[in-house]
């Protein structure tokens, strides 16, 4: 499968390592969010995914299709 190259700006934001304290702070904050609306939204998304694709094989196949769709739609870096 072809891999999408990220722009340097996106790569820096998303894939560059964070300082340890900042990483831990963001992890704590993201887990705390699970007790609120963000957790509900994520739960609904996971429920839909498990309902629509009930087996691991179907979920993995979805992942390949979704990535291929994203590749077709993504601007060339």
């Amino acid at each position, binding site marked *: 499968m072809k*891999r999408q190259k990220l722009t340097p700006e996106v790569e820096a934001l*998303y894939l*560059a390592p964070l300082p340890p304290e900042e990483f831990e702070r963001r992890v704590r904050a993201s887990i705390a969010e699970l007790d609120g609306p963000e*957790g509900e939204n994520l739960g609904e998304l996971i429920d839909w995914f498990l309902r629509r694709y009930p087996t*691991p094989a179907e979920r993995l196949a979805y992942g390949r299709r979704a990535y291929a769709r994203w590749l077709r739609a993504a601007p060339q870096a």
Partner: protein
Amino acid sequence: MEGTEFSEEAFFAAIAASGARALLIGRRAMLALGAPVLTADYDYWAAFEDVETLNAAVAPMGLHPNRSPDEARRTGRYALENDEHVDVLIARAATTVTGEKLTFDDAWSRRQTVRCGAADVALPSLDDLIMTKRWSMREKDVVDIQFIERLRRKKP
């Protein structure tokens, strides 16, 4: 190319049949467990001793290592490649910058198995999968940890 010729089930079956101790980690593992995330490649954490077995298992599918087994052991990682890309970590243990250590043997002993068609796929426990996400400390990993934690809360 969408990689439609690649049979994921045959790939997983070949690894399972070989006896190579290899854990599917990363976003592909998250997908299998129920998190709808995007990923391009496959990430495995394999036993230090099982590099040759793993390589032989996937060679008939045209997946070839980009490093010799000795070089891969020295560097701790390599990739299996054709149209697909499989990153393989072969460290005996990995430690986060905050000092939390996870050995392969412990992760393997706590593994969970999911069925993919006719093939069994070995995955880390949710706790260990979270730990693997703490190794690189990227924003992407923060997002993934939140997803995995939410999956853990769903577990009975």
